């Protein structure tokens, strides 16, 4: 095994091993725990950096181990997987720092960080999975590792949310398993191939392929929170904020969306899907989700719940982009995978900082918060504008490509879908910005939360927030650079749609 083969494994284990070690730590070993976390983060970032460089140079990172008959365990770092891996690695770093700040002084930190790291490993595994079986393995691991995080607080409300989460995701996982089994029975579980490997399956298996597609998409759609499979996501808000952040930006929902992208492009392939005419229902569901979830978000009075419904809506952008089966739309979907992650995590970081510093949970409590916490509120504004798709944020870039992609494949209504969605996004985000900056606070802010003099909130909460907010801006402003998410997405699409 040469070094190129080892790297995907290192990428997975760089968070898994610290996670397992952290379980064994006592609660008081704060320093050691932080050290382990940061060590894992650093290693992972380095490995991901090397892999990014390698893939852009045309290197192939691949490792294989026997697992099931006809379906080995394959970890494969291709362009698409690296897109997701880099997102996970970077946001893991941010979230780890954030979580250290957020959880300071609360019990059960070892358990939290242990599962947290495992969760990230599972995400990286999902990203690097080279075939459906491997994907399933990590996908289920992700389900399990996330559950303890969702219920971390241990309250009845948290447990209820956890139950709902499990009910949805385990059911989804089972459907996914069925779908994978159907495909496995037809053609085994070979490695993902750009353009799909099912093209060679004889035409008489069309019904089976259709059923499998429905199963796979339904299974993945649970995590991707397609309506009506989204019910768990808003409830999962009771989790500690770093968890919500990671859940919404990277780990769980993205695994679903990423899986849908994989299934569409690397399992079925655009041609097969067009022949079977399978994407129309998916497009319809995604479009409906975009609108309906936005309307639901309007109804929410709880900050994190509103953010959650916004996630539901935004995730369907990705799904829609993938399902439109055109290169530009695909670029839009893929780049939104990154952009949505960065923007949403910013918003959640802010929400968490408000909550920790001032005890603000509800939207109505946000009046004038910008005076008290201007930096955090600025980050929030950037995130909110990004979600709405206002330039120069990252959200604008993805929206542009998605709309253009819709036109390209002859679906002009997609443009207007994004118009309406943008309006609704504005309708539920901009009032928050208004409240934060322009309203007068109704009561004095509590003073005793201020932990470090001279800072508006704990430093560990503020720095990651500003970092991701900056990224949001940079990804919009520097969208043209070749190594940015847009350039990388175009690289992926160039490989998926050989012209």
């Amino acid at each position: 095994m040469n070094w190129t083969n080892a790297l995907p494994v290192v990428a997975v284990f760089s968070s898994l091993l610290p996670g397992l070690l952290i379980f064994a730590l006592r609660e008081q070993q704060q320093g050691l725990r932080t050290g382990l976390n940061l060590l894992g983060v650093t290693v992972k970032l380095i490995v991901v950096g090397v892999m990014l460089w390698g893939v852009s140079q045309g290197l192939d990172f691949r490792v294989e181990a026997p697992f099931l008959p006809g379906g080995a365990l394959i970890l494969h770092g291709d362009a698409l997987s690296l897109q997701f891996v880099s997102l996970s690695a970077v946001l893991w770093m941010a979230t780890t720092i954030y979580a250290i700040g957020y959880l300071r002084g609360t019990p059960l930190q070892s358990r939290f960080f242990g599962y947290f790291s495992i969760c990230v490993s599972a995400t990286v595994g999902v990203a690097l999975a080279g075939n459906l079986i491997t994907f399933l393995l990590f996908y289920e691991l992700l389900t399990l590792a996330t559950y303890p995080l969702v219920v971390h607080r241990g309250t009845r409300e948290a447990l209820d949310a956890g139950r709902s989460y499990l009910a949805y995701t385990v059911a989804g996982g089972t459907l996914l398993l069925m779908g994978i089994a159907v495909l496995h029975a037809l053609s085994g579980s070979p490695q993902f191939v750009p353009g799909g490997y099912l093209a060679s399956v004889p035409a008489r298996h069309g019904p089976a392929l259709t059923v499998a597609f429905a199963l796979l998409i339904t299974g993945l759609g649970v995590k991707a929170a397609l309506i009506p499979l989204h019910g768990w996501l808003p409830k999962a808000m009771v989790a500690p904020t770093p968890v919500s952040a990671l859940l919404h930006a990277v780990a769980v929902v993205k695994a679903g969306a990423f899986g849908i992208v994989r299934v569409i492009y690397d399992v079925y392939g655009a041609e097969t899907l067009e022949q079977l005419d399978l994407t129309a229902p998916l497009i319809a569901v995604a479009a409906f989700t975009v609108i309906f979830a936005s309307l639901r978000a309007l109804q929410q009075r709880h900050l994190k719940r509103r953010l959650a419904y916004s996630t539901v809506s935004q995730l369907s952008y990705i799904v829609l982009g993938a399902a439109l089966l055109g290169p530009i739309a695909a670029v839009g979907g893929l780049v939104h995978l990154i952009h949505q992650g960065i923007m949403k995590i910013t918003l959640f970081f802010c929400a968490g900082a408000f909550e920790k510093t001032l005890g603000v949970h509800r939207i109505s409590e946000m009046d004038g918060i910008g005076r008290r916490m201007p930096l955090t509120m600025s980050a929030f504004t950037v995130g909110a504008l990004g979600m709405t798709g206002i330039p120069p944020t990252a959200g604008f870039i993805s929206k542009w490509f998605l709309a253009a992609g819709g036109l390209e494949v002859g679906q002009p209504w997609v443009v207007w879908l994004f118009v309406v969605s943008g309006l609704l996004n504005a309708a539920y985000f901009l009032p928050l910005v208004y409240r934060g900056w322009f309203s007068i606070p109704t009561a004095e802010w509590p003073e005793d939360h201020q932990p470090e003099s001279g800072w508006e909130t704990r430093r560990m909460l503020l720095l990651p927030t500003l970092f991701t907010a900056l990224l949001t801006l940079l990804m919009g402003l520097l969208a043209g650079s070749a190594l940015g998410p847009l350039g990388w997405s175009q690289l992926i699409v160039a490989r998926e749609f050989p012209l």
Partner: protein
Amino acid sequence: MNGTVNGVVNADLWLNVLLAPLAGIVVLLVVGRKSVPWLWLSCVPALLAAIWPPGELNPGYLWPAASWGAPDPLARGWLGFTALLWGCATAGAAGIVDWDKSGMRFWLFWLFSLSGNLLLVIGKDAISFYMGFTIMSIAAYGLVVHHGGPGPRRAGRIYLQLAITGEMILLAAFVMRAQSVGGSLALADWQQLPIDGFTLAALVLGFGLKIGFWPLHVWLPLAHPAAPSPASAVLSGAMIEAGILGLWRALPADDSLLQSWAGPLLALGLFSAFYGVLLGLITSQVKAALAYSSVSQMGYFLVILALAWRHPEQSSAFAILLVLFAAHHGIAKGALFLGTSIHPLHRWTWLVYLLPALAISGLPLTSGGAVKGDLKHWISESDFSHLSGVFKLATAGTTLLLARALWLLRRADAGTTARHRSGLLLGPWTLLCLSVVLVPLLWPGFREVWIEQLSWSTTWQLLWPMAAAIALTGFAIKMEWRVPEPLRRWYTPVLPFSLRLKRWLYNPPLPRTHLELDWRWWRQQERRWNHFWNERGIISSSGWLLGFILLAGVIWSAFW
């Protein structure tokens, strides 16, 4: 025409045009209030670039196809007057805006808005333009609602609702336009290739919401009174005109579809021009009257556009007219708005103040005289020459409206005790007022037109409606005419509609999606089921089941 200095000025100046306001932000954050008097410097690179424009800059590391420059006189002139207006307004605002009342917030939004405005002017590609346009619009929200309280909040709400709607429609229109020209994002390409009606409608609607001609003007008379006066100045002087620029840039120069749309557009423009006057006459706020004047003036812009659409062969000439008109209106209206903050008004300030007011009315020798004369000239040359008479009426209306505005200003000045007369305000304001004369003299392109219109016939044609209007005003003041009571409470359906929209958005009527299960019923069934087995006991039940299995197996086999 910029050949002489092209080699001297580096293309990176374009970058500096944008970096200057951003640097202003940084300085502001670091230094605080001390930096405020110097923030007008952030407009200097833009002004320099307008005077000595370097070659285009393609910052490929930014968004795709990014390209900045001022390739034609239109862009150059636009950049110039925008920079001038913003510079003066910035300097003036330093004297008006109270730092202690959220001054920092104001300046941040101000500088963001400025950078957006500059970006859209220098952008040669669609994304730059859209980006600048949006940053400008959104940041201006912060200026509109700066004062706080119910009025600004209401104005801001409507502004934002319409602005965002406009942005989104524009996004759609831009995407469609880009796709219809084969994915190219260069605005130069957009001006070459034909357009379809749908995209055109979207563009007109999207930009129209910013431009504010009838019937999309509803935010203007609300936002201007609410905003601080420098903000009103740039809103009316630079921002709404950006919409005109956008319309010009995004549309092809020569297109049969546009030719057929020219007539309706002209009608819309004329209606807008008169509608603005009439509504302005019955308001009782200075800035609202000025805002209605803007609505009215935007009508003229539409007329110019309609002419250009109808006569594509003279497109370049109309481009000149457009930029001159924009410069004229921007500077004059900016001066008027900025001046509303000067209290108390002395005799000489009144004199200075009259200058832009008369310029807007079209006083010869001012910029207004030049552009209006030129416009009339082109109308008489065009297919719409039979409408020349209407413009005389319009000029009279404009004068009447401005007279009303001045009268309202005088009344307001008498009623206020606030004092704003610092040099920081008066200096730039005076510069701006004088610019209505100076700019036509200093700007070579403008000077040509100015000289062209220095004929007696033109002067007469411009002057007599003005004189008539002034006479009418004097008569009205003498007679102490009041706006009739029913007209004062002019009903606009926009406000309740906006409020209803807000409430609807706050809680959209959605179907309940929760499944209601009757748990008690299920529990009862379960109890019944448990009871059924309990009663029999394990052994008996098992015995029964065993017996049934034996029988069932046999029956199954028999029927297999």
